[in-house]
């Protein structure tokens, strides 16, 4: 029967991450548990919601007894969290109970047998890719905000991940705005272009695992699942079975009105004008003329905001409405100082990019105001 000891600091991070996968409302009681497995000097912690599965790996320095059992994830985490930083924690199975003890604290938890714990079936054939974590993190961060949440078009409730020789691209859209980011990845060994849709939850959980360091993440792409491993984790997510919309077609090419402005300044004037926009729909009007941008907003109480800022623009006047949150989301993920807007008319989308980086592009459809 399972029996092991380790330092709290070794346990807390993997346990937190693994518990993050566990859903609060569960269909099967065992799904609110975390699976603990000890083999030789390795402890594996697993959490699953049947769509995503996360396994954390900890090397034990103390001798341990092998075994496997499941305990309530939230309670186990709360206990570990509540113990002092330098605690040594012992976990021991006692027939159907699991005893967690540390110093003079002792907790007896219920358990469910490890055999009841479901595992996501893994595709046997897969292709393997190796991507630097920092790059992968950048691709996710630049686009994940645009994923739909609970759309009927279920293929939008996730992110398109595209792997082609030497390049990785992510695209996310909720049907009203779109974010796309590409990164060159040296020696990405793929013979042909592959595109899959990773579900929203899979992306959010995966992003939490990335450290942003030099280390690489191994991606195993099967027909129905994606698995990602680092030295500490093994993460599996089901893929969304569907066809991602043709995004190339909606990236505007014909825009003739190019505006360049300071990102921070634009961010603050949009937020300022938005105070008096409709709280629910968040519409603002952009009125562009040579050298000037006026942002106007009004709400159902007929209150009005008007904010003017200097921008780098030469051309005819244009008035176009947008959901200000869509614009702010974009300005928040861009890191450069200057941003570029390319517009054409009040019914056509805006193309927004970081002035110094056109490997990431954002498309926002207007609002008729």
């Amino acid at each position, binding site marked *: 029967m399972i029996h092991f000891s380790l330092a709290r600091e070794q346990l807390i991070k993997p346990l937190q991450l693994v518990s993050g996968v566990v859903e609060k*409302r569960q269909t099967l009681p065992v799904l609110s548990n975390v699976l603990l497995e000890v083999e030789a000097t390795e402890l594996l912690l697993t959490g699953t919601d049947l769509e995503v599965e996360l396994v954390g790996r900890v090397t034990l320095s103390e001798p341990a007894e092998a075994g496997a059992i499941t305990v309530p994830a939230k309670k186990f985490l709360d206990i570990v969290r509540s113990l002092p930083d330098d605690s040594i924690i012992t976990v021991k199975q006692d027939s159907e109970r699991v005893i967690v003890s540390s110093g003079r604290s002792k907790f007896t938890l219920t358990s469910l047998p490890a055999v009841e714990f479901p595992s996501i079936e893994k595709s046997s054939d897969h292709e393997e890719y190796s991507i630097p974590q920092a790059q992968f993190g950048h691709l996710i961060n630049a686009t994940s905000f645009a994923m739909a949440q*609970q759309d*009927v078009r279920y293929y939008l409730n996730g992110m398109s991940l595209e792997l082609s020789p030497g390049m990785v691209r992510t695209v996310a859209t909720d*049907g009203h705005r779109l974010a796309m980011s590409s990164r060159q990845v040296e020696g990405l060994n793929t013979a042909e272009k592959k595109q899959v849709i990773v579900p929203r939850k899979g992306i959010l959980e995966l992003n939490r695992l990335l450290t942003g360091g030099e280390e690489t993440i191994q991606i195993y792409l099967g027909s129905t699942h994606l698995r990602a491993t680092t030295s500490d984790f093994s993460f599996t997510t089901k893929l969304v079975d569907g066809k991602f*919309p043709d995004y190339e077609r909606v990236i505007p090419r014909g825009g003739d009105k190019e505006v360049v402005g300071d990102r921070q300044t634009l961010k603050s004037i949009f937020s300022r004008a938005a105070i008096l926009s409709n709280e*629910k*729909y968040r519409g603002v009007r952009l009125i562009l003329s040579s050298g000037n941008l006026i942002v106007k907003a009004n709400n159902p109480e007929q209150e009005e905001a008007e904010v003017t800022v200097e921008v780098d623009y030469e051309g005819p006047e244009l008035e176009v409405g947008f959901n200000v949150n869509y614009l702010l989301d974009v300005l928040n993920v861009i890191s450069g100082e200057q941003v570029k807007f390319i517009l054409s008319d009040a019914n056509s989308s805006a193309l927004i990019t970081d002035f110094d980086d056109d490997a990431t592009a954002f498309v926002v*459809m207007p*609002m*008729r105001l």
Partner: protein
Amino acid sequence: MQRKIIHIDCDCYYAALEERDFPHLRGKPVAVGGQGPRSVLATCNYEARKFGVRSAMPGRMAKNRCPSLIVQPARFEVYRSVSEQIRSIFSRYTELVEPLSLDEAYLDVTDSTWFGGSATLLAEHIRAEIFSEVGITVSAGVAGNKYLAKIASDWNKPNGLFIVSPAKVDDFLVTLPVRKISGIGQKFSEKLASMNINTCGDLQQWSLPRLVEFFGKSGPWLYQRARGVDDRPVGGSGERKSLSIEHTFSQDRVNAQQCEQEILRLYEKLRERLNKKGSAPLKGIFLKVRYSSFKTQTIERNWGLTLESFQRLFQVRAENVEEGIRLLGIGVRFDNSVPEAQLSLWPQEDSNRI
């Protein structure tokens, strides 16, 4: 500004139209519903109600209670066209009409100059016009908002009128049972009763922070209703809030596999209807299960629209697993937070927003 709202509710609408069109039915217990042994009544007249027959009651149970009950097949085309006729009467007096169903509507008559601006006289006039032009009776409630007007129309039913004038609101509320508040069902009222809250007067004793503490999001709503406050405009959002499909089995089902097959069938139908309507963002999905005992359970989650999600919902329904299932329904709830004015990247995929 003090608003003037009239709520009009037709008395036993479908049954009344059957009596109107088939004189031999008059004065007899009449219901409208399917003819099958397991069909449920859509409505019934007051004669039938004397026997304990109620709308939504299975036909067989109704027949047991009232053997002389005449169950007429529904004639929805007639009900719809008469409903339009009634709406055209409303439109003579105000443009602000919010139909709730074929037989019920709110009218905002705040700016009406008819009858010297008296909403009471206007309500009486509309009732009389409907009776003479359409041939059925309606009940009306007059109050300063939708919530009180709706309670008022039920007060002197049938063929009645009741007014909750602003001066009388406080007295009216003190003794008003909380169950009368639209939105408080049996379960909720039982919960309130267990806390010694039976009337709006009782509810008024509770502070807003305490109501929020006990009832969460419903707290502010309860606080307002207890005080007769309801700022919802007449006209409603006009947005579609949900779409669902259900099926009553010809025999109760206990076998989970049969139910899952039915869920598959319903799911395909639902997808078909959603595709026809075009797409819109969803807030969640739900499953409705009615058991042999008529107990009905609705389980709702903010999960994606997949067959698996509905199957999972079916598994969530842990209680009553042993009991037979009479009806299964599945549906989606829409997220109306995206305005019509927002343009789409792929307009052809959602040109018909719901």
